[in-house]
């Protein structure tokens, strides 16, 4: 018989039974159990199957160092893959399923794979499956691999939170050393946070207190009370998973299966690592068999969960300090054998559960082996922080040496395995004093027995054996990282917590070197596997990239607007609840026959103010702005320093010291950053100031043949005399300043009226009311893009690409004539900028009756049976005004090819068209100032 529950032992609550199933059979455990302790208590040994050979797997450890007991668990109808049975708190109704096993872990049909092991050495797949092609074999290999199963269901409530916290002193680990350090630091007046990954503080104390005549729970309670009364903060179920730059430690608080954990980003001035140490496996034949566990696991299961893991227990270890473990298990009724671990030729007997050991030819009958080849301090966080390690020959392990001054390691994590010394050390370190000397602790080196016949496991989950390490050695894969990557040693769920030193030890033996000469691998976060959800925080759904909202959104919704995302803004796409096509045709007609009433508030509005404002705008614009008169508006481009079109739009001159830049709605933030960059780089910041007013103003645009009538009736301006296209005036609306700009993005007479946001709704309604009498109505973004396309007006980013310069868009003059310096100027004269082969913006016309050209279709030239791309269609619409399709395209040499036919290619289909001017409607511009 194997595991059983011992009465009155452990920290579990026997009054609270919890029902669960494992591989379909019903069991029960108690509150305080982990899935592993509950299963062990029922006598179950085989929890899962290993990755490669499908060997039966039980537990090796009692906590996060266990590589074996991985299970899928369903709770409340949602399944969670790859749960560590040893750390998952048992909950009512859990359906636990073994992984990598069918029909069950106990009877897995793929167990036969173990027989083929000799043909499946480390990296066997690198040596075969090349002919005819890897892709033929891959699906089979993939099916064999993998552990748990992912099911698609996920609860909307499975939501993490990311918190930002700070303390003077963070102590990681609530065992004897950590508790002591936390108490001393808190009592010294520090703001202290103590974290421990268990639900119960105490760490290794539970398995050692008994022998020290202490009551562990009482001692823990005393320290806890002292810490809290001194103002210390304690977080249980919380694991420090990684240390990041600038002293940030990520902490993950587990909230039980089915609830997403909380991620705390803790910044501490001083960090004390008291994470303890774990046993490492002894390398011998069949050392992976169920029933072979770590020494500490044996006592942890008893002390924490009241589970005695076996009846006849053999201790196989070089550790000098296991007497307390022996005594506790003996007191719980187990019979104990002590086996000299350094004996050659040790072998385990039994398949699904161990039945004995053969040691030096002698058989020992046992149902459980508690093994340890020495303790490995958990120094992950120290290494994340850049701390160094040194080999300690006495302890046969790596312990922290030099490292950052803000982090200290104490207790077993520092190799201080003795309770009393650890407490002294914790006290000293908490007060930033030098640590006392460690007491003598010497273990006999245990090197793998290379001559032992049979397979000896190094990595339990990944089925890496000593033979695999030997193969790596033979093939000159001797660097630690090559060994790891080639054999996959240390790459399993436990990330080498149990296997790394065993692997190094094996390689050292093979090379005839010492372990430190072989080296160590890098420790990477996270310390334990963490659900991806933990890192998501508020970056979910609409909060992920929040949309900008218009002040007039309720007005648009009241008009049955279809709302769409345009350049980060939620804007009305069309109105009236029709389908898009019908609505766009109707709105285009309104715009051309009466007037479009549009919400243009999303357009950027950036003010440039100050004595040097004029010089500044002249510098940041491609076009000459130095001679723009007050009250006038000019269209222009901003370029990047590499000469590419960065943004386009109009700029108004209010007076010599004030200019208002209007930029693409999606671009306002980038333009603002661009302007600030140049202001601070090349100007005196005291003489020019930039202010983004986009979100403070709302703009209603009235554009169309009836626009003047409507604006006149609105009464914002006293009269519209001497108010030509491309000029600016200030009027008032309801007693507040209203800015009126005569600019047009449709080609018709157009007024943009800007008012403070709180007057926007009134202006909008009044404009609609007056407009209605003239046949005008609201027009959305979709119709607007057709109207502007009819005129050949571009949208930067849509009708330009990463090569477009202003002279490709028909604006060549400033490049040749502007004498003042401007951003991007010199780049406009590179070999490429002067090249004949540039793509220029043109219009495309299709033959009568042919459908629209698809956007993204390429203009191609056939040469020697090969098509070469000359450019592509950037914009394409059906123009209700013209009654035919229109298109804009960037075409190599396009400006010199007016009227020429071109071939197009789209997803395998050929089309043809004719190059035309980009402006298809009212090319004389008669309507713009009508």
């Amino acid at each position: 018989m194997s595991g059983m529950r011992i009465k009155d032992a452990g920290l579990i609550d026997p009054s609270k039974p919890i029902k669960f199933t494992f591989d379909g059979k019903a069991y029960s455990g108690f509150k305080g159990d982990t899935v592993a302790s509950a299963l062990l208590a029922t006598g179950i040994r085989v929890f899962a199957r290993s990755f490669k050979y499908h060997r039966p797997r039980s537990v090796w450890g009692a906590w996060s160092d266990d590589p074996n007991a991985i299970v899928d668990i369903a709770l409340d109808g949602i399944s969670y893959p790859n749960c560590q049975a040893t750390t998952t708190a048992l909950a009512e109704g859990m359906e636990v399923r073994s992984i990598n096993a069918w029909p069950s872990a106990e009877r897995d049909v793929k167990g036969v794979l173990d027989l083929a092991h000799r043909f499946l050495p480390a990296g066997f797949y690198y040596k075969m499956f090349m002919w005819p092609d890897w892709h033929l074999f891959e699906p089979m290999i993939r099916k064999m691999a993998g552990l748990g199963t992912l099911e698609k269901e996920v609860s909307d409530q499975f939501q993490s939170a990311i918190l930002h916290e700070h303390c003077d002193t963070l102590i990681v680990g609530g065992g004897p050393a950590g508790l002591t350090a936390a108490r001393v630091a808190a009592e010294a007046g520090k703001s202290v946070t103590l974290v421990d990954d268990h639900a119960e503080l105490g760490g290794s104390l539970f398995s050692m207190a008994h022998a020290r005549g202490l009551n562990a729970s009482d001692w823990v309670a005393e320290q806890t009370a002292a810490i809290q009364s001194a103002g210390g903060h304690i977080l249980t179920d919380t694991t420090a998973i990684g240390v990041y730059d600038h002293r940030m430690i990520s902490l993950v608080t587990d909230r039980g299966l089915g609830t997403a954990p909380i991620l705390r980003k803790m910044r501490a001035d001083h960090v004390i690592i008291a994470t303890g140490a774990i046993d490492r496996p002894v390398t011998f034949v069949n050392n992976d068999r169920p029933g072979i566990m770590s020494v500490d696991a044996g006592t942890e299961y008893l002390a924490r969960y009241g589970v005695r893991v076996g009846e006849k227990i053999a201790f196989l270890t070089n550790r000098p300090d296991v007497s307390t473990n022996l005594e506790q298990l003996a007191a719980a009724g187990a019979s104990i054998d002590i086996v000299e671990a350094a004996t050659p030729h040790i072998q385990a007997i039994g398949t699904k559960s161990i039945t004995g050991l053969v040691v030096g030819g002698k058989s020992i009958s046992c149902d459980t082996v508690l093994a340890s080849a020495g303790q490995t301090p958990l120094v992950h966080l120290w290494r994340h922080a850049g701390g160094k390690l040194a080999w300690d020959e006495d302890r046969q392990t790596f312990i922290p040496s030099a490292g950052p001054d803000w982090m200290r390691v104490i207790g077993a994590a520092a190799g201080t395995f003795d309770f009393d010394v650890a407490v002294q050390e914790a006290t000293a370190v908490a007060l930033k004093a030098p640590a006392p000397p460690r007491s003598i602790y010497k273990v006999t080196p245990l090197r793998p027995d290379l001559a032992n016949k049979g397979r000896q496991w190094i990595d339990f989950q990944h089925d890496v054996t000593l033979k695999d390490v030997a193969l790596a050695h033979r093939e000159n894969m001797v660097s630690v990282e090559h060994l790891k990557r080639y054999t996959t040693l240390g790459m399993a769920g436990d990330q080498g917590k149990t296997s790394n030193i065993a692997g190094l030890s094996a390689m050292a033996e093979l090379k005839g070197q010492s372990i430190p000469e072989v080296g160590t691998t890098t420790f990477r976060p996270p310390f334990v596997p963490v659900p991806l959800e933990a890192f998501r925080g508020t970056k979910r759904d609409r909060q992920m990239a929040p949309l900008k909202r218009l002040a007039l959104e309720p007005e648009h919704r009241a008009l049955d607007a279809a709302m769409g995302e345009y350049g980060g803004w939620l804007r009305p796409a069309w109105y009236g609840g029709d389908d898009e096509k019908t609505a766009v045709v109707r709105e285009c007609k309104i715009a051309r026959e009466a007037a479009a009433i549009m919400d243009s508030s999303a357009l950027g509005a950036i003010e440039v103010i100050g004595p040097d404002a004029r010089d500044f705008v002249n510098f940041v614009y491609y076009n000459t702005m130095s001679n723009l008169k007050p009250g006038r508006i000019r269209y222009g481009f901003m370029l990047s320093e590499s000469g590419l079109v960065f943004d386009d739009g109009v700029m108004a001159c209010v007076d010599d010291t004030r200019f208002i830049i209007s930029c693409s709605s999606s671009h306002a933030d980038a333009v603002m950053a661009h302007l600030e960059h140049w202001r601070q780089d090349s100007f005196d910041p005291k003489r020019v100031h930039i202010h983004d007013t986009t979100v403070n103003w709302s703009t209603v645009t009235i554009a169309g043949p009836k626009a003047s009538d409507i604006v006149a009736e609105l009464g914002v301006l006293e009269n519209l005399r001497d108010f030509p296209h491309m000029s600016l005036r200030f009027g008032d609306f309801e007693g507040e300043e209203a800015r009126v700009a005569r600019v047009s993005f449709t080609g018709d007479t157009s007024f943009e009226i800007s008012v403070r946001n709180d007057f926007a709704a009134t202006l909008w309604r009044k404009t609609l009311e007056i407009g209605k009498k003239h046949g005008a109505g609201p027009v959305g973004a979709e119709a607007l893009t057709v109207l502007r396309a009819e005129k050949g007006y571009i949208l930067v980013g849509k009708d330009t690409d990463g090569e477009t310069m202003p002279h490709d868009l028909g604006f060549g003059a400033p490049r040749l004539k502007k004498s003042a310096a401007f951003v991007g100027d010199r780049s406009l004269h590179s070999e490429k900028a002067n090249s004949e082969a540039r793509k220029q913006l043109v219009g495309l016309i299709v033959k009568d009756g042919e459908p629209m050209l698809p956007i993204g279709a390429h203009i191609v030239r056939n040469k020697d049976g090969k098509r070469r791309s000359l450019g592509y269609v950037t914009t394409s619409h059906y123009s209700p005004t013209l009654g035919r399709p229109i298109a804009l395209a960037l075409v190599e040499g396009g400006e010199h090819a007016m009227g020429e036919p071109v071939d197009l290619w789209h997803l395998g289909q050929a089309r043809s068209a004719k190059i035309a001017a980009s402006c298809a409607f009212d090319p004389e511009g008669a309507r713009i100032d009508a």
Partner: protein
Amino acid sequence: MTRHYSALSLLREGLKGHTGWAPLWRSPAPKDTYDVVIVGGGGHGLATAYYLAKNHGVTNVAVIEKGWLGGGNTGRNTTVIRSNYFYPESTALYDLSVRLYEGLSRDINYNVMFSQRGMMVLAHSDAEMELAARTVNAMQLGGADAELLDGKEVQKKAPVLNFRDDARYPIHGAIFQGRGGTGRHDAVAWGYARAADRLGVDIIQNCEVTGFLIEGGVCKGVETSQGLIRSGSVGVATAGHSSVLAEMGGYKLPLHSYALQAFVTEAIKPFMDTVAFSPMTGSYFSQSDKGGLVIGGGLDRVPSYGQRGNTPTQETVLAGIIDMAPALAKVKLLRHWAGIVDVSPDSSPLIGPSGTEGIYINCGWGTGGFKAIPAGGYLFAHLLANGAHHDISRPFDPGRFNTGHLIDEAAGSGIAH
């Protein structure tokens, strides 16, 4: 000793306990002089050495590696192989790479596990579908395979993706390249190293270059931690550390070094058969043969030579992954790390003379160096052997920054690198 790899040799060795396998490579001491010294024992450096020997008969070659071979970005990337580029120059380069990858395992007798499971670049709006069509057409015209998938076709290929109505970034379709996929990154380094070693190339690990031997303005070799090594010409393929070598070699580069993070989850039974990338979140993932999800995203925000990642980018990338495939919220992160990538002004590589005579450079691959290893090695070997460009590498000469002939994919096609 068994040198040739095949199912038969594996069977034979299996019967005798795998005791006869030859080492993958020797560990020679450096000679005094080589015809070519390659600095950097990553994928590009090793592939260069292999093609120098194989294509050009130049076998007196040393590859000098500071640490262990394949330990830089070759061993740190997310293993994606693709040629879904916009400009014909890029398509020619990366498609050469895909073609070489297609025959690589047989060519070097080492299974690099090139899995042509396809790569999809998702489109999340009508406007993105238009851009996707533009790219698909460009790829087809450039000679690479490409398809435009609609939402339903994407769902069929990758049912785990987010097809909920309330998705922040609904899936309208995707650019799909069927010949794209993933490879086993370490195997590429090991396979090239083994093949180069067989052809006589000396691979010298744990040997750090500390300076260049410059005589009369011409590079005549390298100073290393294992002594002076003279060389006819020197090829530098050190990715994120290219600027450090440039400083030693007296030439300048237009590069910034950034940490690029990668993430791997615990192993899951197969559920994802392709690579999926979302340009809106910048995140992408595939499932490795072992079962772990391999996740990547954009660069860290802070220029860095520290080979570790920082939390803001982690959160952005992983949140993006969950938005792409909500079920992945439950899957656990096992390990994350970073490589140092060298990002050029147009995010395209630099292959050509360095500016110091005798030194040639292969760098600036940014986030996309792994997929280009065979082409990078093939073209760099051509350059080192002939002192002149192959047609495919010519547009990537560093001189393009003087002439303005940049190859800026990000701006051209909306595909992030």
